[in-house]
């Protein structure tokens, strides 16, 4: 595990400053990046680039010397690492040096015996403590949970999800850990999370989607909310390229339709 931050990393930033995503256009919209220590929902339907965006956020952070943790629920982390290797911005030494860490949440479930189909209150607290423990032990300053939807699927009850989100938010804010939570939503769900309570508690919501323009399907990104940030709510066209996520303003000419 690498020690400390690289020059120019977060150690040189005053507290309360920005946590740059490393995606230039996104950082420009956000005034330099996510507010550090905030909890941000990255919502979108299948194939809109949620996982890619969050992975790039971690990789760019690891490059800056920030320790970054990807908690994978839905996909085996070994497969994610394989996919990541196809991007030019990824360097394997980020993983071997311990700056970019992957943990499979199902393994955490297994180790802690969280095997009820619906997690009990005690089990929810154990899960939060486990996340808190990993972030503390590894000195993580960037965290991704992919996906929050899968975690909440096992919490089920809205009041418990609210409690889980509030505690998670508090714990991660205390640790000054900037966190992206992936939220899987339907194409026309009208909300940004499984139960709707998640989006009310988080500090920010980024919406990714597909839209049709002149016969093509294009990816779009929109910042719905970001506390403490004055930002545009315009839609941006997103391109997933080997060098990372590229964004450009979505020109409104032509007929378009949300998907």
């Amino acid at each position, binding site marked *: 595990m690498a020690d400390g931050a690289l020059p120019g990393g977060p150690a040189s930033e005053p507290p309360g400053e920005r946590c740059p995503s490393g995606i230039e256009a996104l950082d420009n919209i956000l005034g330099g990046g996510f507010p550090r220590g905030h909890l941000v929902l990255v919502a979108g339907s299948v194939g809109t680039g949620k996982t890619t965006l969050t992975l790039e956020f971690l990789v760019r952070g690891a490059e800056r010397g920030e320790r970054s943790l990807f908690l994978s629920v839905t996909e085996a982390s070994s497969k994610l690492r394989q996919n990541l290797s196809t991007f030019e911005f990824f360097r394997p030494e980020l993983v071997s040096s311990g700056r970019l860490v992957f943990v499979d949440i199902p393994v955490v479930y297994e180790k802690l*015996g969280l095997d009820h189909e619906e997690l009990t209150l005690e089990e929810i607290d154990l899960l939060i403590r486990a996340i808190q423990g*990993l972030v503390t032990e590894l000195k993580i300053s960037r965290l991704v949970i992919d996906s929050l939807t899968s975690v909440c699927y096992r919490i089920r009850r809205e009041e418990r999800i609210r409690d889980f989100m509030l505690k998670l938010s508090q714990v991660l804010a205390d640790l000054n850990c900037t966190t992206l939570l992936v939220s899987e939503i339907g194409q026309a769900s009208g909300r940004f999370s499984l139960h709707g309570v998640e989006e009310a508690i988080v500090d920010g919501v980024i919406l990714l989607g597909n839209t049709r323009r002149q016969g093509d399907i294009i990816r779009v990104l929109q910042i719905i909310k970001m506390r403490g940030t004055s930002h545009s709510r315009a839609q941006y066209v997103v391109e997933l390229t080997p060098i990372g996520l590229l964004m450009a303003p979505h020109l409104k000419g032509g007929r378009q339709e949300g998907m």
Partner: protein
Amino acid sequence: MGKLAGDVVLGIPELDRDLTASLPPGWLGLLVGSAGSATSLFAKQFAHAGLGSSPVLYYSVYESTSDVERAFHDFGWDPSGLKIFNLAEEYYQKVLLRDLEISRLRERGLSYGEVAGVPVSVSNPRTFNLTSRLLADLAALDSPFRLVLDSLDFLLEILEPEAVLTVARQIRHRAQTLGGMALLSIQGDIHERRTTGLLEDMADLVIELQALPQAGGYEHRIAVSKIRNHPERSRIASAQVTGSGFGLLDAPVGATSPPSR
């Protein structure tokens, strides 16, 4: 006791004559007893009686393999050929040991070293499907067999009664299909009456063991309280346990009322 073969049922000649004439080729027996009534010894004698003439499966829940073998030797029985399975040990390894580890991690917290590089399991490692475990062994049999499960108490401790009844039904069906003999032991006074009643109803043979305190020791009684379709052959007999296992004393105690549970 020497080697037994042929139509020997229990290894107690006085009882075997009646049982051989009464029971179908494949049957399920229930051995009911209380602590100290020597159900485990009786079960071993039954298992021994089948050695040499059919595969004998011995499922133990409290005794280790070496304990079972030692008991066989103590009574002059050769355990060679006996297939011994320790269900409690398997349960301990697959469930209880993991529970200990889970408790430790829950109390002390999970460290990265404990989850780093651990592959995701497809199945829940704490699940010990006892039903599947037993049925897989039964399914592998293709000829008459002898089976001992000592005891159902353990199954009733970790499974719902309906699941235990299902296991018993499966064993009975397999015994009927292949001409097997299966003896399941159970303590008669610790389970819900409904469960023991359904097990007794399902069984073709019900044997109850009793140890009555007497001056200087215990008087053992064996009650054959049910032989399917042959109530006239039910009986209670005084028994003794010698260096060669259970044997009957001279005259039957009676032929009507089984010992109270």
